[in-house]
């Protein structure tokens, strides 16, 4: 195998911080950039909490401080210049993502690979904004990244074999398994999962069953480790809503997101990260 990729993670939200944590847990140095100092602050807290969890679960012997030291937190996008792989995790908004990809284009080396971590935006739309669609690939990580063995890799129409090989090396170095799928709105996981979550919310909204009852049915009847509503809380209800909107726009047909989901997002009940969603959590704490 060639030399290990030099990795930068752009966007320090829940999933970006979790990706950086998963890399650091495996001993990799990583640059984590976000323009928002508050996001960087929260990411540092969530990576520390994640490192404590790893210790509690005996997954990692690394001291939380040692793990944190592998992450270089920065506010300057220019600090990703030396990376051979950039994992982009900015918010699920096409215009914002396109803007970041154009900027990265100007900053990074001519052989850098750009992995977009998106819930549903087609990779082709992002690739088209850059001068190098062959070096753009989708990497759909699941939260929490250190605890999820599998990654959905999305091959855009123009993604090259060399790009896929570099991503495969990166995932191997992270101890992850992966499945490569073709580009389409929502790829596989979210195209199927998000409408299911949306219907689960509608079931609660209409009073057919409580959130706890819905989840218990999925857990006990189907053997899911987590029901759809606790899964939604973990993903973040704002992300669920944005993903459903992207799917709705791109696939047409189907049902619009349930009004209850819009109400909860508007009220700041975003799930685990805000302390309350369909279930209650401790406020102010996130986990990488």
């Amino acid at each position: 195998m060639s030399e290990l990729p030099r990795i930068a993670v752009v966007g320090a939200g829940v999933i970006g911080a979790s990706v950086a944590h998963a890399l650091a847990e495996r001993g990799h140095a990583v640059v984590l950039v976000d323009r928002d100092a508050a996001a960087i602050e929260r990411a540092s807290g969530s990576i520390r909490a994640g490192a404590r969890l790893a210790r509690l679960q005996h997954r990692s012997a690394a001291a939380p401080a040692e793990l944190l030291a592998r992450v270089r937190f920065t506010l300057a996008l220019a600090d990703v210049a030396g990376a051979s792989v950039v994992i982009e995790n900015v918010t699920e908004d096409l215009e914002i993502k396109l803007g970041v990809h154009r900027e990265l284009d100007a900053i990074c080396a001519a052989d850098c690979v750009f992995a977009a971590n998106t819930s549903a935006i087609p990779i082709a739309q992002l690739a088209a904004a850059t001068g190098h669609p062959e070096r753009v690939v989708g990497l759909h990580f699941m939260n929490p990244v250190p605890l999820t063995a599998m990654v959905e890799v999305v091959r855009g129409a123009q993604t090259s074999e060399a790009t896929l090989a570099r991503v495969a090396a990166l995932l191997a170095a992270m101890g992850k398994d992966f499945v490569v799928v073709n580009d389409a709105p929502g790829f596989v996981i979210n195209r199927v999962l998000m409408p299911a979550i949306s219907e689960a919310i509608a079931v609660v909204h209409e009073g057919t069953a409580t959130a706890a009852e819905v989840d218990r049915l999925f857990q006990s009847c189907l053997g899911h480790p987590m029901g759809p509503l606790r899964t939604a809380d973990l993903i973040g209800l704002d992300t669920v809503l944005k993903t459903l909107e992207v799917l709705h726009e791109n696939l047409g047909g189907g049902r619009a997101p349930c009004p209850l989901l819009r109400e909860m997002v508007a009220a700041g009940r975003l799930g685990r990260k805000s302390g309350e969603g369909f279930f209650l959590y401790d406020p102010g704490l996130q986990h990488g």
Partner: protein
Amino acid sequence: MDDRARIRAHLARFSRDEAWLGSADLFAGGVIDSMMAVELVAFLEKAFSITIDDEDLELANFRSVEGMLGLVERKRTR
């Protein structure tokens, strides 16, 4: 509020079931998971003004109200 009542009041956010609050393994029934154990670590540090060190990060210290009380006591007397 004494220490025990404080911990129980915090746990009651997740369930008010007496059998669960008094159980020897709070993680067994699926009411809370080990990710929430980290939240418990942060809660104990803040509520009792203690610092929980890396070597204290053992589930046994957070599995029951008794375990948490013992940890708080040890951290205070150091």
